[in-house]
Structures are given as structure tokens and as C-alpha cells.
């Protein structure tokens, strides 16, 4: 595979999709993931802010994590053939995610004059039934990245997902309007952040304010 060119002048927004493919995701849950992905990538691609800067990766996990698509510019998402089965080793997947981020996401360095990327945005798509020890890893990793947990399936364990991140949404509740607002919010935050100062801001500072606005968060 040819590595896509990185424009050193563009601050990329790396988006990681972390997809639970354990056996409990069979049926409606994994189908919901597929539709959710498509809706999200269409929006990211057609939004004038995000189409330029979003880079996208898919990591699926059951007992073992795999990077199905390494971080690359946002292209047409065709639907990934997710294979379902096995246990849900979220802890292991989060460690793997962190390794991918370490390799793929650029760090800001004033010394070397290198522009860093935005803090990665991670969508965890899961029914919230992990089977390994994930708590300690999750606590650490969720500080390094912006996590959005998308609950899928009829038996979704929302309380568990809330332990990974404060931002939990249910896929079935997302309408095209909420997608639109979310993407617009991403774009607007990134531009306002770059107005303020290029050096100090490398996160999506106030995601919470967005959610209070679009009312998709489960309180």
C-alpha cells in the first residue's frame, strides 16, 4: 500500500473508529454500525471544514484488535465486511489504539518547527459488554483522546460506556440533523481554536457545550 502524502501545513483531524466485533454484536448492532459509519463519513466528506482535514482509520476488535484501514484521507466508505465472533477485549483494543495513534498522529514540535495534528477523535461503537480488564487503560487513554461512545444493539450497556467517556450517544437516536450539528460543531471548534492561537490548542476544547446544545448526550 502506498502511504498517502501528508501535507505538512495541514493540521489533520485523525478520526479512529473502534468497532466492537465480538459475538454479542451480531445482528442489529453490527448493521447499525455500518449505517452509522456511512452517515458519518458522508457528512465528514461533504462538510467544507472537515473534508480537507479528516483522516480516518477503522480498528475492529474481538479477542484481538486489527487495524482494518490505516489512517488515511477520507474517501468513500464502502462498508467494511465486519466478521463477528469471539470475546470483547476492549482493554487490549485500547492499548492497540494508542499504539496506532503513536505511530500515525503527528505531535506538535516548536523546536523542529513541525505542526501537530488535532487531538484524535475516537468513536467507540459497542454494545458495552467488554470481557477483559479495561478500566485502567480506558482511564488513561480517554485523557489522551476525545472519546465518543456510540451505543448500539438492543441490549446496550450504557452505564459501562459511560465509564469510558462522558460522551455517550445511542446510534438509533442519531438523526441526520444531529449528525449535521455534530459535524458543524467539529468544524467550527477547529476554526475558532485556530483563530485563538495555533500553538496552544490541540484539542476540541469544549465538546461538552456542543452536546448540551444538540441534546444527544444521555444524562
Amino acid at each position, binding site marked *: 500500500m502506498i502511504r498517502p502524502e501528508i501535507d505538512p501545513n495541514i493540521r489533520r483531524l485523525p478520526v479512529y473508529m473502534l468497532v466492537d466485533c465480538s459475538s454479542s454484536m451480531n*445482528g442489529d448492532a453490527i448493521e*447499525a454500525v455500518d449505517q452509522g459509519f456511512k*452517515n458519518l463519513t458522508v457528512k465528514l466528506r461533504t462538510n*467544507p*471544514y472537515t473534508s480537507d482535514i479528516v483522516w480516518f482509520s477503522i480498528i475492529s476488535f474481538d479477542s484481538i484488535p486489527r487495524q482494518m484501514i490505516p489512517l488515511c484521507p477520507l474517501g468513500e466508505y464502502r462498508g467494511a465486511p465486519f466478521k463477528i465472533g469471539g470475546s470483547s477485549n476492549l482493554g487490549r483494543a485500547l492499548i492497540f489504539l494508542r499504539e496506532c495513534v503513536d505511530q500515525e498522529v503527528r505531535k506538535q514540535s516548536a523546536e523542529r518547527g513541525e505542526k501537530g495534528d488535532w487531538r484524535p477523535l475516537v468513536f467507540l461503537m459497542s454494545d458495552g459488554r467488554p470481557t477483559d480488564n479495561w478500566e485502567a487503560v480506558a482511564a488513561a487513554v480517554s485523557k489522551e483522546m476525545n472519546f465518543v461512545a456510540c451505543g448500539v444493539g*438492543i441490549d446496550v450497556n450504557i452505564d459501562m460506556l459511560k465509564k469510558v467517556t462522558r460522551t455517550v450517544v445511542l446510534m*438509533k437516536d442519531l*438523526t441526520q440533523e444531529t449528525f449535521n450539528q455534530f459535524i458543524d460543531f467539529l468544524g467550527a471548534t477547529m476554526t475558532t481554536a485556530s483563530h485563538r492561537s495555533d500553538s496552544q490548542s490541540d484539542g476540541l476544547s469544549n465538546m461538552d457545550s456542543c452536546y448540551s446544545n444538540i441534546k444527544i448526550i444521555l444524562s
Partner: protein
Amino acid sequence: MTLAQAHLDNGKKIRYRCDQKIGEGTEKIFFPTEREDLVIGFYRDEEGIRDPERLKRLRLILDQYNPTLDPKNGDFWKDHFCWPIAIVTSPEMGILCPRFPDKYYFSDSRGEKKGRWFTSKRLTLTLPADERGDLRTRIQIGRHLARAVGRMHAAGLAHSDLSGNNILMAPRSSACILIDIDSLVVRGIFPPKVLGTRGYIAPEVMATSLLPLGHREKQLPDIRTDLHSLTVILYQLLLMRHPLEGKKIHSDDPEEDDRLMFGEKALFIEHPHDASNRPDDLDVRLDRLGPYLSPLFTRAFTEGLTDPYLRPTAYEWVDALTLTLDILHPCRNPDCWHQWFACRRGLSLMCPFCGWKPEDPILLMHLFRGFKQGQYISDERYLTLWDRRELHEWHGRLDVSPPQGLSGGSEAVGAFFLENGKWRFENRGREKMRSSSGKSILPGRRAEIVEGTSMQLHDPPQGRLALFQFLPTDFHDPK
């Protein structure tokens, strides 16, 4: 009138009028109940009645998969789905459903307002003009439908038999409702029971319809085949013809011809590079629906016919239909029942349904958003303006969405007026707006608009910038 007792699986009982059949489908027979707002549907098939799988499926559909139970949005979804509310266990297996609201019945003997009435030109023309719906209401109905289908898909469910028979439409209220929810399909859990309805079945399902169940290559309905059916319905609703039924004949045997036309050999009648299926009397071309819908239809009926994963999602349709509502212009021909048409650059300015042409150039308002300090990028969307057209908050602000429901929404923040050939904008909001000349338009005041005028509709970074341009009336379509 004879009342009989039916037992529900939640322990309750309800009486129904067993001698007053009110409706009949391929799967169920319906009777009224003692409650005006509820009807009972008994399954017809003998062998399915004791099918434990069906019971399991119904329980999940009624409970966990049921969006109308949502404490927050349940009522909103009740406008979209006629979702069953209880399982009937005796005297026979059946379901208890809400009765369709009155707006979904014709006042005469036609009965329920099935989608079929509105998706074929021949049938639609038999309806009184005020029952047909105009282009605008049909776009709104399409959006309502796409939203309902999108909600199912977002939960990982497929309807599996979307067609003009399973959707009721009420053009006067711009509404529609999905019925026959009890045959929902979940991949890997609930296999489909039917392949679908002629004309709406996806090509991959049609092409393998003769293979026995369980054959490796047999394709069955799922979310992606729903997306094909949805697209066919939307195309029919807006253009009143079937996208695959053209002049091409594939076989001397009508059954075989059908199977090929909707299956293996399916060819879009408006295929951009293959005109062999184009009907000779194709009147309103797809590109007349504007720049948001026509590429989606083309994608769905070219690549999307053979690659189900390339079909636009239901929510993509919601977006495209919403944007298209903004670019409609009223047709001033009193005899044209379509009443609206989409305006776009590069096509002659006329109502494609009746040929009416506006006398004055038409004003378009292009929307931009702030990018970096002092820079704007196009939102790739615009509004067609006409005299007394209102401007709403969601046009000018990124952080405000258009209302999702049928009614409601915010008050207008402005309006456009065409007087003596001059265009003016009136600020009806509470904030001042700034035009390109640096002048403020205070609340309650009007300002003139000419070619190239720009206007900041709301403060940045959430506010949009509008740029005005005229669409000339003397543009002729390229041959």
C-alpha cells in the same frame, strides 16, 4: 354487530367486531375493536400461527426495537410508523395496531391512501387535484419516509418489503406513515419472510429469486435492499414513473422479462451513458429536481444497482430532500397541479411540468460560512427567492437545524419582496444584519438587493454569509 373477545399476550383482553372485516393484506385480516383508535390483525397463514419464532420476533419488535416507546421521541416516531402495540394470542395469533389516522383515508371508496396512488402518473391523475399533492408536499412526504427508514436502519433493522403498498401518504398534510412493521428483518437474527414487492425488490434479490432458500448465492432483503426500494419510491413520488421500466425488452416471456428488467439486466431509464432503456415520452428529466437529488438518484441507479454498498443511505436522502425544498420556486400557472419547480444554474428557467416561464429573473441566495479570519467558503447550498419568501434562523446560523417535525419551527427572521422589478430584504429578526456595503440593516428595516449584494445573516463564527445572484430568464437548455 357481533363482539368477540381477543386475548393479548400482556394479559389484557379486548373486544373486536368479528363480522366487520375492514381490511385485508397478504399476511393479515383486520377487524375494528371496541376502541376506535385500535384495530386487530389476524395472521392468515395456518402454519405460521404456532410458529414460536414469530412470537419471539414480535416480542422484540414490540419492545426493544420499538422507537415509539421512547419517552423523549416516541410521539415523534408515532407520526412515522404504525407500530404494533400488542400481540394477540387468541382466538388466533395476531397483532393489535393503532388505527391509521383519518388523513390516511380517502373520503370515497378508495379506502386507505396507499403510496401507489401517488407514485404512478396514471393513478395520480385519477385523483381529485387537491388530493394529488404538489411537488413540494411530495418532497416533504419523501423526507418523512426517508427519516422513518433511516431511523430503522440506525437501529440495525430492515423493513424488508418497502413498497407503495406498505406506506400510506397524506399529501394534504405532507405526511406519510410506514405500515406492516411486523415483518422487520435483522441480519443474522430474523431472516426475511418475503422477497418484497414487484418493482421494489433490489436487483440482487430479483436476480437470485429462483434459487432455493439456503443456496449460497441467494440474496435476501436487508438494509441495503431497503435502500433500493426507498430510492425507487422516492423517484416515483417525484417524477411519477418507474426508474427501471423503460422501452427495453429483455425476453419474450413476460415473467422472464420482469425478472431481468428488475434484476440481472436492470438499467436506469435515465442512465447517463446508455440510452437504450430510455422511454420515448420521457418528459421531466431527472436533473430538473436540482443539484442535490439528481446525483444521488444517478448514483443509486447506476453503480448502486450492482453494488449495494454504494447506495445512498436514508439519511443522505433526508439531507438532499431538505436542501431541495430551499431551491423550489412557485409555478404561477394556475392549471399546473405540481405548483413548484426546482431552480438551478445551467438549465432553462421554467416549470418542467407545464412549461410556465417566469417574467423576471430569479434571485438566488448562495450561502457561505466563515473559514478563517475574513475568508468564506461555500456551503454548496442556495435558496431560490420569490416575492414574500421568508428567511429562517436555520438558514443564517450553523448551530440551528431546520425543524424535524411537520409543524413548528422558528419565526421568520426576514422576508424578501419583489416590487416593481426591485428586490428588497426586510429584517424581521431581533439583531441587525450587515450588507456588503457595510451598512447595517436594523430590525424592521428594508434594504435593496442587487446582483452581487452580500449579507452577513448572523454573527460569525456560527453565522452564514449570503451572496445574491440572478438567474437569467433567457437561458436555453443545451441540446
